[in-house]
């Protein structure tokens, strides 16, 4: 029964993936064609009033084939930088997850703390990361620490807010049931409220992991000697647009993979809920 269901699930999953894949292939094909004909570069140059002389402006808009070529030719460089950025993203995310969950539990348990801290949590999101990143680099140097801080600062918010909403949404009758069965506050939290909030935590974590990659790029732009964000900065400075695009592609792949990993983990752990959205 299980394998059958899974197989049919996989088949319908493939069918579902068909439309976005076709769209993607179509867009890439148009881009390739336009780039090879120099249409895009001409348009850009005309806009800037520099006159259209197609062939000399290849670097402006690299064709997907150029990007793929760079991806392969610079695979050693890209792998090294990917590792650096991936480490930052993962550590920063885990840090935010631990801190966000802990804070969500604390403000859930203590009304006073919630009133004191919650506005600050919201306010922390209004800090422009682009502005604060260089300051953190000045304070903490070029190492990994300021990068983890910046990534955590970005990830922290969706995790905390979602987890807290999850803890808050527990059926009040369920809490009563736990109390009458003899559960103390901590047991109620551990046995009923946290499992209940788990799908919410996953929602927050999925949002966080997607923005974590953006945080990593900001952090590396503020001051770094390696990483994909650093690579984008350097390559665009050298007008090596194809390499920039290749780095962006890898960044997107990191975000998609981490997101998919979390979705998979959620389906494995939260078995009591149907996840039609996956």
């Amino acid at each position, binding site marked *: 029964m299980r394998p059958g269901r899974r197989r049919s699930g996989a088949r319908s999953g493939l069918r579902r993936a068909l439309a976005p894949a076709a769209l993607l292939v179509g867009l890439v094909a148009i881009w390739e064609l336009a780039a090879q004909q120099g249409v895009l570069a001409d348009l850009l140059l005309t806009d800037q009033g520099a006159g259209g002389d197609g062939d000399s402006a290849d670097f402006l808009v690299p064709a997907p084939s150029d990007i793929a070529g760079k991806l392969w030719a610079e695979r050693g460089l890209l792998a090294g930088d990917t590792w650096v950025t991936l480490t930052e993203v993962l550590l920063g995310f885990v840090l935010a997850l631990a801190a966000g969950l802990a804070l969500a539990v604390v403000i859930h348990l203590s009304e006073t703390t919630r009133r004191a801290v919650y506005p600050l949590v919201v306010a922390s999101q209004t800090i422009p990361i682009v502005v604060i990143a260089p300051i953190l680099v000045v304070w903490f140097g070029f190492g990994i620490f300021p990068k983890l801080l910046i990534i955590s600062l970005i990830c922290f918010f969706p995790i905390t807010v979602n987890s807290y909403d999850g803890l808050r949404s527990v059926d009040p009758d369920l809490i009563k049931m736990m109390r009458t069965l003899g*559960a103390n506050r901590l047991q109620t939290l551990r046995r009923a409220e946290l499992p209940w909030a788990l799908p919410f935590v996953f929602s927050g974590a999925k949002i966080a992991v997607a923005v974590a990659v953006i945080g990593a790029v900001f952090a590396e732009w503020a001051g770094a000697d390696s990483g994909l964000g650093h690579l984008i900065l350097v390559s665009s400075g050298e007008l090596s647009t194809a390499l920039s695009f290749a780095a962006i592609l890898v960044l997107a792949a990191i975000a998609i993979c981490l997101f998919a990993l979390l979705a998979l983990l959620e389906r494995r752990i939260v078995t009591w809920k149907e996840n039609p959205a996956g």
Partner: protein
Amino acid sequence: MLATTGAPDSEPQEIPGGPGPAVSVRAVGHSFGELVALERIDLELPAGGVLGIVGPSGCGKSTLLEIVSGLTEPDSGEISILGAAPGPDGRLARSVLMPQRDLLLPWLSALDNAALGLSLGGASRQDARERAGGDFERLGLGGFEQARPQELSGGMRQRVAFLRTLVSGKQVLLLDEPFASLDAITRAETQAWLAGVLAADSHTVLLVTHDVEEALYLSDRVAVLTPRPGRVAATIEVPSPRAPDRAAAVTSTGFVELRERALRLLAGEAA
């Protein structure tokens, strides 16, 4: 199994010696804003006794049970369970409420749901499962130990919830419409089974139901409440409750007479 063997460690709490009621409710009144839900309720229940409470919908039966359980404090009046000091903590420790909704935890198996009270009380997982699992067969839940609640029918879920209440280790059981979602046949069987359980051990039970027959079959005494605000209109003594042959008991002349009296009281006629 629990009804017949009763290993020492699965016994409910000790009943303190000496006379005095196990549960006493004195002049309890409660309102929700302007709405007076309960008005001066007086009830008394000896240890090991079963008191049925019947009344029309909205007469505050469920509120009364929540108050007795210690989950809610009444606006006025006093409740004492097994001589506990006033205040909700003593009542919470000595009683367990079975709410109308089953409220099973969807991430636990049926067996772990039934064992929840035991494991909260500090029993090891293995021990809790063994003690809760003993009655699965008897309640028609055999083979469903590992099923998740969402895979069970409404009636089965309610029986798991009932088992969770029964094996929680508390002396006083507060049952709020425990068999409401069972079909008539299963309901009669479960009542007969509960009658056996209650005859064999020393649980003290407050049973809220809208089913007069259920109340009269299972209880030593039945309190009939008036519509909002709830007051005790009359108390009916049941001469020989929980007879093994349920079908014979509920069709006997005496039972039918009691039933008529209760129904007339519920309809607001003087009896």
